[in-house]
């Protein structure tokens, strides 16, 4: 059997194993998607998905070029009767090329990322009129505190919402994140937002939902034995609904 037959048989064998296990366990082809899920619901979500796509294209092209070249070299320069390798210690021009090009590409990516990062995380760029909510992470629940009618936290008309974060649509919201016991991480996958909540610190994180509905709130930092079930819901209301909900809660809080 020659080299190509043997290699081909190994490849066919491998592919068969993959297909058999795939059929037995039955994942969906969609699960292999490399683009961000089509569920984004915040203002900077599409920007992040787009940056993801840019990096995916760059790394994808590099991936295919390098891996295919590697395979071609392996096939083409395999040992055969009477061959002798070329005696070469390298090539300085090539070294310069493959130092400079990656450097330029990754630096371009870094500075492209900087603009986006600053828009999302620079404390000075948090929109001035953002609606404030305090969120406290504790083993194993999220509690959101709203300021009540007076717009001040720490007053008697504050009220809380456990594991459900109510926010208005199309309006920036700034969450002041704190943690009571250990580090938790405030993760809303559909909003593409994640920020650790650290005990002893108060970290602002802002976002603006673009569609009403219910979204997932998760904890993304190992926080103890109940970490896996420290989930909650984000309910995005229309402006009118949100005002109604606030009024309802305030009335209830006063009644208590």
């Amino acid at each position, binding site marked *: 059997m020659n080299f190509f037959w043997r290699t081909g048989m*190994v490849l066919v064998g491998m592919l068969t*194993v993959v297909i058999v*296990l795939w059929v037995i*366990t*039955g*994942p*969906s082809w969609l*699960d*292999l*998607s*490399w683009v*961000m*899920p089509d569920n984004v619901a915040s203002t900077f979500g599409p920007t*992040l998905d787009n*940056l*993801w796509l840019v*990096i995916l294209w760059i790394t994808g092209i*590099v991936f295919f070029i390098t891996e295919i070249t*590697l395979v071609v*070299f*392996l096939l083409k*320069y395999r040992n*055969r009767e009477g061959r*002798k*390798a070329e*005696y*070469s*210690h390298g*090539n300085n021009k*090539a*070294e310069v090329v*493959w*130092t400079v090009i990656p*450097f330029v590409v*990754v*630096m371009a*990516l*870094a500075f492209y*990322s*900087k603009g986006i*990062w600053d828009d*999302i*995380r620079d404390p000075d760029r948090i929109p001035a009129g953002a609606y404030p909510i305090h969120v406290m992470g504790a083993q194993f629940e999220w509690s959101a505190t709203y300021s009540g009618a007076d717009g001040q936290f720490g007053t008697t008309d504050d009220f809380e919402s456990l594991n459900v974060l109510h926010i208005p649509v199309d309006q920036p919201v700034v969450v002041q994140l704190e943690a009571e016991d*250990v*580090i938790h*991480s405030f993760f809303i*996958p559909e909003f593409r937002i*994640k*920020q*650790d909540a*650290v005990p*002893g*610190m108060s970290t602002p994180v802002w976002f603006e939902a673009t569609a009403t509905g219910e979204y*997932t709130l998760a904890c*993304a*930092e*190992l926080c*103890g*034995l109940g970490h896996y079930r420290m*989930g909650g819901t984000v309910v995005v209301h229309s402006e009118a609904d949100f005002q109604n909900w606030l009024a309802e809660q305030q009335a209830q809080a006063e009644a208590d």
Partner: protein
Amino acid sequence: MSTTAATETHTGHAEGHHDLGFIRTYIFSTDHKMIARQFLFVSLLFLLVGGILATMVRWQLGFPGQPMPLGGMLPDTMAPGGIILPEFYNSLVTMHATFMVFFALMPLQAGVFGNLLIPLQIGADDMAFPRLNMVSFWILPVAGIIMLASFFVEGGAAGAGWTSYAPLSSSGEWTGVYMGQILWLVSLTVLGFSSILGAVNYVTTVMNMRAPGMTWFRIPLATWSLFVTAWLLLLAIPILTGGLILLTFDQTLGTAFFRPEGSGEPLLWQHIFWFFGHPEVYILILPAMGFTSEVIANRSRKPIFGYHSMVIAMVAIGFLGWIVWGHHMFQSGMNPLLGMTFVVTTVVIAVPSAIKTFNWMGTLWRGNIHFDTPLLHAVAFVSLFIIGGLSGIFMASAPVDIYIHDTYFIVAHLHYVLVGGSLFGIFAGITYYYPKMFGRMMNEGLGKVHFFLSFLFYNMAFFPMHNLGVQGMMRRIYDPNQYEYLQGLQPMNTFISISVFLFAATQVIFAFNFLWSLRAGKEAGRNPWKSNTLLWATPSPPPHGNFPEMPIVYRGPYEYSHPDHDEDFWPQDDPPATSGSGGQPAASPNPELVPGD
């Protein structure tokens, strides 16, 4: 045999190398080659422990809430009725990573190959400090036993992740793990001394004990990689040790270095941990890069492409590794204005990695590639390191990291670097240097079967993890089905789990081949791979004192297929006179350098 004759006639090195008796030879040995073998056996055992823990983690994720086969043997505090408890799951995740990182990958590279290769590749008769070397090894099993013992104390083993973020790790009240966490801290503190003693030895030996003619730029790349690694160990491990001691104080004395009550600072732990932790990442892969370079040059019968840039790239990685730690902390609450600093340093470190990758490919280019098992593993290293490197660019971009941080995308990335990279590099190293360590070849057929199955199952297990991360699946969660949006991923998780089991089962082939070849492998002779480095100028295994005569180095380590030389290799210690010019018969290489039968 000519070997023994040479040893006897030679006086300079042989003195003091009399028979040492069983205990001094096999247990409390100060011979670097024996210590390398001791490291090899012990760290392979810990690799097995880490692997078993991994399969248990994957059982829970692949078949959540179902009784694990043989799980009935576990006590009710871990898995009542074979069903893994959430707190035990956290311990499994923590201990899997701890064993793999600290007890398998580190000793398998720095411990085994630092000891084996450094003296032999630079032409030294042993390490600079043989007794420290012995202590360095014996700390490993002691620390390992402490770590293993933590499974059996009340509250179970540490469960705060291998990164042990405070305050979760700083007090048992948050995890229910008191003694287990303290044993974790003590074990790693103790283990740190093993690395420090080893590193002192490696640095001193490379700097002071090179054979005549072994200039810095004639040192083989494996030794270069271990030299850079030794510096990283020497400087990084004390930082971890300092942090571990402070955390132990928080746990036991009620101090508040990392706890907010008492004005401690949880982020300080993360800064300390990752200031150690990022150099650690390179400690875990530089030696594998070294073996890969040796194997690819040798099996392509071609000089390494760009030797100098390979060395400079490793030194550059060694430096840059110190200023990138903040990329683990983009979402930690660290001042966001620092983010950009770490984005820039992090993407810059991609450049030396790219240089190395292109140079490996340049070495294969126009080579004469022999597809032996070590070459297959080395090429797998390159191809998988490309994936691990490219996936790193996603998370190096701080805004992209917002979404993928703490998801399976990170898990996929780190396993592409540490399994696809380090472990395949280690397999390349073990299969390539096995004949020198034990005097016999490993079985080539079994080696190839092990390689192809490992490569297949490895990719089946870890490649789809990228996609789980894209879907937003968090790492370290006991049961993803708690989240509605992750429930659809269960079939993929089952696929991954079965692939992991198959990958683990494949390692039985390796274990069998490894053990069986000790007795039954083909005799290797001195230089079965027709290699140039001084290592292969010694008998296999080398005698105490290594070199019958002090070797003299005439040329670089990668003079393969030299046009003025008839053989396609030209050992570093081969005197120029025998190179085929003048009246000497052209094709008369030193007979001892030809593989024996």
